[in-house]
Structures are given as structure tokens and as C-alpha cells.
């Protein structure tokens, strides 16, 4: 295909015309709208290929992907004060209660889970009530479908340190002065620090995910003290940034996402591990939501088809293998065992080991669910500004 | 002047202000068809503003411009029956000489063949045959101005405006080009309106000259009139080498006016001026009409003045003698240099400067 021809086809695809859909030669059901599903999410929501083709093939739909930054504000802004409903049919959240904010403003649709055959596979915790079940419901109605979850922990450079770490204390230990990093985001950083301070009894904290102003102040003063002592090399911002810090050995310990640790280990060739912290972890999940706009444009069928893929072991096994995220459905081990062509022995072992690690992390009592909108968010912000300026 | 001749350019009560600066102040002017008319004056006097207003490059603050009797005050340059030659930098550097000359014709959508023919003929007329494919920067200054001429003339417009067309040429070239311009105008027979600050250039080409200073038209007339019989003090001071003596009218009798110029009283013809005793006036006498008299003063002679000899300035063809009068005023006497002349007076020696009756002229403003 010459360059010109290629450009022409790209432009057609960009325009999202049905010509491109037909050209791709995929089964297009009459129930589906002619337009591709406009999906506003992040790159790690896809598996199977460098682009969305594998996901499209599994779901039998066309996807127009829009890149989303990792910040909750952008999503809220676009959906509630911007024109997100005109732009996107479906979107993923940034964890921690966004679906409540969006549903309360009436910008996302209630879901009919009977249209998702794989809903029966969903992890039991989502139907038991409690924090996990709340993350997909608003006022008791299901408004979201979970696709990944995790308990965030500490990554450490085992090659350099020579021992396993199992406490957040390492992050604040003078031994790693100038070689430690946390995320440049008050949410996970304050929550994980609060979990540590609470569980070690250093400070009285009721709920690490929704602290009172006084508790926020206590946590931030602790961080300021550590920062002034030169404990942190930097606060990382974004995936690439986090990977680079660990891979270049700028830092030896870093509180970060699991894929950051996985990629850093792969890039550097060092033994960089992801620990289980005795104090507990910030746990979270990411969910998909159908926008009211998507519903009114008749994209619900495509949405349910895609959700069915997200709740299939096909997706669960792959997201676990690639990024280390926890599958949201049962039957992953069986699926992996039944498909030796797709998963060689190394992959099977890796998946088994990661599942075990995950179970260990999820078993910790001190875990606390992520909360993007704590009650006293202004105190969080103001105190975070002080941490930054210290 | 032949009143029946058709008028090509007529401006009436024309003014141009830039904020508080007055560039033109109520100018009236008539140029007849087929005339070579020169606007002469010092730099900053407003002559270029007048020309550019006629050409449509400036909008007058007040007054009208009529070309061939038609009011064009609101028309842009391209809608006026004029074309223009500029001082310099005005050739299109990205086009060939032929392209420059043919540009106006191509705007008029003439057939290519016709353009080529006309362009070639015009280049030949201005003496640039065979240079059509050159770029402007490959030509000499004189040649470039010829290209400008050709570019304007090829349009067959009735009025050609020339804005200091020779100012950036050296003296020798300017002289030659002056005559060429004059001959060219005679050949094409259209109206030329030429702006210059150089009086020699003006004299050479002009049928008539208008003097412009401080935004006003001071005086107009044929070259000879302007030179030999300037009516205004400014004209006398600007054209030729005139000795100007300020004075007061001592008495008026018939056609003769006696003027006290401080260093003596002299008689001047009244002309058509009306004067009374005590009026402030100026007297002008051209330097070549003065003589240094060797003989003693003649009794009642009102056509000479006495002063102290100062110095000689040898100028080649002519020699200037400078004499200081009793009141400090200075006279310049210019004579044809003559190898066999009498020995010049010693500096400081008392000499008498005299002139023929009728050489002195009276100005009231």
C-alpha cells in the first residue's frame, strides 16, 4: 500500500465512516449502530494487540478510541461541564467513586446487566454489598461494569537491596534517603501514608480514604518532615515517569502501580519486585460506563457486547499477564489451562504466581478503597500544596 | 497663455493635513494638455504631496482634483488617467525588464503578442533595445529609470507624473536624462507633471514651472519668467543666484520706487505693485547682472551701492566676487572668468557695485 493510499484510508477511518467499517470486513449486526463505539479510556484497557483490533474482533464491534489522561478532573469536567456526552458513547473512570459523581449529575445511563451474558462470571464481591459492590452502583442501581482492579503496593529493586520488603516503613526509612519516590497525586500518596501511620499506631486515623482535616494535616506534616529530610528523590507523575525512575535506578523504592513495576523490571533487566505491605494497600477498580449520549445514539448494544468481553476470562487472563491487573471474573485459571496455545508454561506460572500475590495483598485487613472525592477535598488540596512547596 | 487650450490637470483649493501638520494648504493649479509642467521647491515643501494627491496615492483633506475636467478625488490610482515614474526602488525586482514594462498591459488583458510588440517598441524608444530579458538589478541607474519611463509610457495614458525621477542619478547622467525627458515628451505629446528640487533640471525640461513651498503654491510661469522676473521674494531666493536686499520704501514717484536698503537708497521699477512710503519690501538683483565699477561714483546714480571688497571665489566658467555693504549685507557679483581680467581689488578696498536700470526687481512678499 503506498503512502498516499494509506493516508486516504486513514482519513476515512478518522471520519468514522461506515465505509471503513465495511472495509474491515467484520460481522456487523443489524442491531448495531453504523457508527463505531466512541470509547474514552486509557491504553491499558485493551489487550491482545498494540491497537484495539483484538478487542474489536472479540466484541464484533468497531471502536473509535479516544485517549484519556489519568486525571479524574478531566473526566468530570468533560462530562459535567464540558460536552463529553456529545463526544463519547462510553468511558472508563479513574477509580474511587467517580460513577457516583457522574450518575448524580445524570450523565451516565443505568445498565441492564441481563444483556451481558458474562455477568454471571463477575467476582462475587460485586454482589455481596460493601465497598466493592458500591463501586458499580449509584443509589442501588448498577451504572458501571468493572474491568480491572488492584491493590497498589511498593515496588523495590531487589537486585540492589537484596531482601524482600513488606512494610511501607521502607519508603520512609533513612536507608533509602534520596532513593524513594511516591506518586505526585494526593489521592494514593496520602491514602497509603495514612494506612501506614494508622496501622503502625503513629497517628489516629479513622478512614485513610476519607480523612478529617486534622488527620490530613497530620499525614501531610509527616510527609513534609520526610521531604525536608531529603527522603524523596521526586514525586512521579504518570506511567512513563514512574517506570523511568525505577528502571534507571534513580529510586530503589517507589509506591506505584503494578504495571509500572512490571515494565521497569523488563526494561532494566533488574529484579524489581512488587511487595505485599503488612499495613495494607489502597485498593481500587476501574469501571466502564455508558454515557447518556451513547444510549441516545443507540450505542447500548455495542457497549454491552464490549462489556461482555471485559467480563470474559479471555480479557481477564490477558490483562493479568500483561499488566498484572486483577481479573474481575472467575474462571481465569481454567481458561488459561484450557488454552495452552495462547499461554505457554512460563505464562501460566506467571499468572498463577500473580494471582497468589494478589490474594495475599487483598487479604490484608488494613486495605482501604480509593476515594477520588474525599469529603474534605479542599483540605487535601491545600495541604498537598504545602507538601509540594516544602 | 492660450485660454482655449484644454486643461489636463486642475486642482482647486487642495489641502492635505497629517494630524496637525499641514502638508498642502489650499493649492490651486491648472496644467494644460501637452504641457511639460514642473513642480519645483525645496524638500518638505509639499510638492511631492501634491503630485501624490493628483496620482491618487493620498486622499486630500479638502479640495478637489480634476483630470480632463473629471472629478477623480475619490478614485484610486488605477482608476485615474495617470501613470507615474518614481525616484527609485520602484521596478519590480522579481520580473524582467520586459515583464516590468508589460505589466500594465497584462493588467489590461491585452493579447500576449500585442504586449510583446508594444513592450519592444517602447524599450527601443527609451534606448533599451535588447535588454528586455535582464533583471532590473542588472541595469545601471539610468537604465532603470528608462525602464520606469517605458513602463509608464507604454500605457498610453494622457498624464505622466514624475516624482524626482532623476534625483538618485549622478550629475552628469542627470543632465543627459533631462534633455532626453524633454525630447521624449515632445515626441509623445502627453502632459508631463514633474516634481524636482533641482532648478537646473526644472529649467531644462519645463514649459512652465510652479514653485511650491510650505504647502503653498508661490508662483508659476514659464522658465524664463520665473528666472528673469520672479514676482515673489521666495522665487528670487530659490531660483538662480539672486542678491536680496531688504528695505523700506522711501518714496514712490510714478513707475519708480526709491528703496532704502540700509547701505544706501536705490531706485527700482514699481511694476504692477501698489506701494506706499514706509512699506517693507525686498529688492532682488541677479548676481550676473552686477558689476564692480572701477570708476568713481556718479552723482545721482540710484543703481549702485558701495561696500568693502572681501574675496574672490573662482568657479571655473564664472568667478564670484563678494562685497560687504556698510550695513553688513553681502552682495555677490558673478562674472565670466577671464584670463585677461584686471587685477582684483585688495580685500577691504572700497568698491562700487552697479547694475543697469531694470535689473533690480521689487518684491512685497
Amino acid at each position: 500500500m503506498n503512502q498516499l493510499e494509506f493516508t486516504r484510508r486513514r482519513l476515512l477511518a478518522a471520519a468514522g465512516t461506515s465505509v471503513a467499517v465495511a472495509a474491515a470486513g467484520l460481522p456487523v449486526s443489524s442491531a448495531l449502530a453504523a457508527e463505531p463505539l466512541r470509547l474514552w479510556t486509557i491504553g491499558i484497557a485493551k489487550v491482545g494487540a498494540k491497537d484495539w483490533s483484538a478487542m474489536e474482533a472479540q466484541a464484533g464491534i468497531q471502536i473509535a478510541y479516544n485517549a484519556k489522561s489519568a486525571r479524574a478532573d478531566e473526566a468530570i469536567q468533560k462530562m459535567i461541564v464540558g460536552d463529553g456526552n456529545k463526544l463519547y458513547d462510553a468511558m472508563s473512570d479513574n477509580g474511587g467513586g467517580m460513577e457516583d459523581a457522574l450518575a448524580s449529575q445524570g450523565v451516565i445511563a443505568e445498565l441492564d446487566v441481563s444483556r451481558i451474558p458474562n455477568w454471571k462470571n463477575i467476582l462475587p464481591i460485586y454482589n455481596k454489598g460493601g465497598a466493592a459492590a458500591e463501586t458499580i452502583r449509584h443509589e442501588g442501581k448498577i451504572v458501571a461494569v468493572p474491568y480491572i482492579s488492584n491493590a497498589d503496593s511498593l515496588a523495590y529493586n531487589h537486585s540492589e537491596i537484596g531482601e524482600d520488603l513488606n512494610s511501607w516503613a521502607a519508603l520512609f526509612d533513612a536507608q533509602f534517603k534520596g532513593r524513594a519516590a511516591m506518586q505526585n497525586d494526593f489521592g494514593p500518596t496520602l491514602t497509603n501514608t495514612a494506612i501506614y501511620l494508622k496501622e503502625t499506631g503513629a497517628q489516629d486515623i479513622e478512614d485513610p480514604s476519607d480523612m478529617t482535616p486534622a488527620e490530613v494535616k497530620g499525614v501531610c506534616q509527616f510527609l513534609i518532615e520526610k521531604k525536608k529530610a531529603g527522603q524523596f528523590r521526586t514525586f512521579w507523575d504518570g506511567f512513563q515517569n514512574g517506570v523511568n525512575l525505577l528502571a534507571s535506578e534513580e529510586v530503589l523504592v517507589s509506591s506505584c502501580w503494578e504495571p509500572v513495576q512490571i515494565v521497569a523490571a523488563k526494561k532494566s533487566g533488574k529484579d524489581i519486585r512488587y511487595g505485599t505491605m503488612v499495613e495494607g494497600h489502597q485498593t481500587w477498580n476501574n469501571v466502564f460506563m455508558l454515557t447518556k449520549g451513547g444510549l441516545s445514539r443507540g450505542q447500548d448494544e455495542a457497549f454491552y457486547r464490549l462489556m461482555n468481553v471485559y467480563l470474559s476470562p479471555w480479557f481477564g487472563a490477558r490483562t493479568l499477564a500483561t499488566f498484572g491487573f486483577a481479573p474481575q471474573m472467575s474462571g481465569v485459571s481454567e481458561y488459561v489451562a484450557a488454552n495452552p496455545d495462547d499461554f505457554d508454561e512460563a505464562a501460566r506460572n506467571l499468572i498463577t504466581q500473580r494471582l497468589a500475590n494478589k490474594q495475599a495483598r487483598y487479604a490484608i485487613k488494613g486495605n482501604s478503597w480509593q476515594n477520588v472525592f474525599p469529603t474534605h477535598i479542599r483540605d487535601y488540596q491545600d495541604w498537598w500544596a504545602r507538601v509540594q512547596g516544602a | 497663455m492660450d485660454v482655449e487650450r484644454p486643461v489636463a490637470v486642475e486642482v482647486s483649493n487642495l489641502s492635505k493635513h497629517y494630524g496637525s501638520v499641514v502638508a498642502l494648504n489650499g493649492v490651486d493649479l491648472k496644467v494644460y494638455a501637452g504641457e511639460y509642467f514642473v513642480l519645483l521647491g525645496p524638500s518638505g515643501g509639499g510638492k511631492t504631496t501634491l503630485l501624490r494627491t493628483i496620482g491618487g496615492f493620498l486622499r486630500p483633506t479638502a479640495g478637489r482634483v480634476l483630470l480632463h475636467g473629471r472629478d477623480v478625488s475619490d478614485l484610486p490610482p488605477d482608476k485615474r488617467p495617470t501613470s507615474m515614474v518614481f525616484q527609485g526602488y520602484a521596478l519590480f525586482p522579481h520580473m524582467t525588464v520586459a515583464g516590468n514594462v508589460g505589466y500594465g498591459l497584462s493588467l489590461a488583458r491585452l493579447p500576449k503578442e500585442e504586449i510583446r510588440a508594444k513592450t519592444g517598441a517602447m524599450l527601443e524608444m527609451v534606448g533599451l533595445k535588447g535588454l528586455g530579458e535582464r533583471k532590473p538589478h542588472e541595469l545601471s541607474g539610468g537604465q532603470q529609470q528608462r525602464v520606469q519611463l517605458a513602463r509608464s509610457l507604454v500605457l498610453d495614458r494622457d498624464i505622466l507624473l514624475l516624482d524626482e525621477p532623476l534625483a538618485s542619478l549622478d550629475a552628469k547622467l542627470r543632465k543627459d536624462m533631462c534633455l532626453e525627458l524633454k525630447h521624449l515628451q515632445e515626441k509623445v505629446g502627453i502632459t508631463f507633471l514633474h516634481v524636482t528640487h533641482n532648478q537646473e533640471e526644472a529649467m531644462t525640461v519645463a514649459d512652465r514651472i510652479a514653485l511650491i513651498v510650505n504647502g503653498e503654491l508661490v508662483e508659476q510661469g514659464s522658465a524664463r519668467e520665473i528666472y528673469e522676473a520672479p514676482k515673489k521674494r521666495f522665487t528670487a531666493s530659490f531660483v538662480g543666484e539672486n542678491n536680496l536686499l531688504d528695505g523700506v520704501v522711501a518714496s514712490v514717484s510714478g513707475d519708480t520706487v526709491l528703496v532704502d536698503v540700509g547701505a544706501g537708497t536705490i531706485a527700482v521699477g514699481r511694476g504692477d505693485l501698489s506701494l506706499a512710503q514706509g512699506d517693507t519690501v525686498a529688492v532682488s538683483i541677479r548676481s550676473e547682472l552686477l558689476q564692480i565699477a572701477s570708476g568713481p561714483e556718479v552723482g545721482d546714480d540710484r543703481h549702485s551701492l558701495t561696500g568693502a571688497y572681501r574675496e574672490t571665489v573662482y568657479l571655473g566658467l564664472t568667478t564670484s566676487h563678494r562685497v560687504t555693504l556698510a550695513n553688513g549685507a553681502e552682495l555677490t557679483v558673478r562674472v565670466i572668468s577671464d584670463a585677461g581680467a584686471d587685477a582684483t581689488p585688495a580685500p577691504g578696498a572700497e568698491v562700487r557695485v552697479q547694475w543697469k536700470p531694470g535689473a533690480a526687481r521689487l518684491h512685497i512678499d
Partner: protein
Amino acid sequence: MQDEYGNKWAYRLKWAYLLLIVFTLMSPVFYVMYISFNENGFGAAEYVFTLEWYAVIFTDRLMMNALSWTLALASATTAITVPLALLAAKFYKATSRKVLTVFLLLSPLFVASDILGSALLVYFKNLNRAFGALGDMLGVGWFSGWFDLGFTTALIGLVIYTLPYAFIVILITMGRYREQQTEAARACGASGWRAFWDIEFPQIRAGVFSAGAFCVILSFNEYTRTSLLKGGFDTFTTVLVSQMLNEGMSEQSYAMSSLVSFIAIAVIGAIILYTLLKSEALAREARAKAQPLMAE
């Protein structure tokens, strides 16, 4: 214009310093080029030479889709900014209120991207509300969606961003143009527009094209304003940032950046080499053009 009595070595030393600075500024670019040939990509401990990333540049569907939007935005920006800058330069030359004009035209340079982006975001949002309310009042709503975030709003942000650069570049080239030529053209019978198009434009064309090139480069690389003001599409930079934040930048993006840089270095290098080699001849011609009547 080398000083005849100047120290040759001092001259060379200054050149060396200039090149050293350019080289230093280019060091991140060189690094990007270096890793674009690494099979393991950015920050990997192991370096394996490959041309693979160059081969797959044009097969990355996501990147290509974003690129087509980027190119559409860049072309639209250029198509609007350059004529506006041309009008602005003309306006500037004619107006008597130069201080105010120059202040307004150049001040976008001095407003940081995040600040202008957020101000515009809030502005468009409020405009939309106002238009919506007006539409309800009048019972017609054809104008209510004018400033929905999308191509138009991103375009406005980019035009404001690029306008000062284009304005300066065009003004510089216009400064060397002699106004008499326009007048001569008008005296030849050309309308104002024809005179501009036939005579002035060919001579300032280099400046206009440079301004266009500036606009393309600037809008191609712009992130903040675009991401704040764009609608439901992605550009090269918004994809890059999303990748950087969520999954790591793709290796193709380094290859693509390197490719652009290689071409730019080759082109600009060739121009400079040519100029320096031929500087004597070019200088002679330039002098002749600058002072046409003095060239005998």
C-alpha cells in the same frame, strides 16, 4: 563580514561556541534518535539495534488516526493564521496606533499555555451557556453549539498561539519590501489587491511560507491548549501524553519524532551550507537588489 584585522582563531572559537550550544540544545533530540533504533525502546538497559520502529510508524492505527487529526488541525491553523498575520502586518504598517496594536498582537506570546487554555475553556463554556439561553429565549438554537469543545475551539486556541510568530516573521520580510513598487503597480492600473498579489506577495513569499512552516511546527507540537480545547478526537501530542501517563509512550513515536528531526536537520543544514559556501555571490546580488540605482 569577517573583520579583516580580527583574530581568525577568536572567530573560529565563537563559531565553535555557537555550534556547541546548538548541539547541547539538540542533545535530547539526539537521545530520541538514539533510542528510536533500540528494539527495547526508551530507558531499556539492553540496546539492540533495529529499524523496526521506523517500519511500523505508519501501521500504528491509533497514531495514524491522531496524526490525521493533527494534520487537519495544523493545516486549518496555518490556513487561518497566515492570512490573519498578513492582514495584521499590513494593519500594523498603516495604523497610527502602533503601541496598542503591537501589544495586542504580541501578548499571546507572554501568556502561558495552561493559563490561556483554562481561560478559554471557561470562556467557551460560558459562551455556550449564554448562547443556549439566548437560543431558548428567541426560540431558535442554530447558534447554540458554536463553541462546543471540538475542532473549532481547538483551532481558535492554536490560531491565538501561532499568530504572533507568524506576524513577526511576515513583518520582518515586509520590512525589506519597498512600498514604491506597490504604488508603481497601482500607477500601472493594478487594483490594491492585484498590486499586492502580483508585486508584493512574490517578494514576501519566503516570509509567508516561513510563517506557514512555523504554524505547522508549533501546532503539531502543541499540547496544553489542544488537550484542553479539543473535542472527541486525539492529536499526536494528546496521544503521547495519555500514553506517557498511562502505559508508556510507544516506540513508534520516537521513530516518528526522529524522522521529522532528520529531515529538518538535513534541510536546514543544506540551506546553511549552501548559503555559507555561496555567501559572496549571494551578498553581491543582495546588495544590488537593495540599492538598485547605485549598481553601475
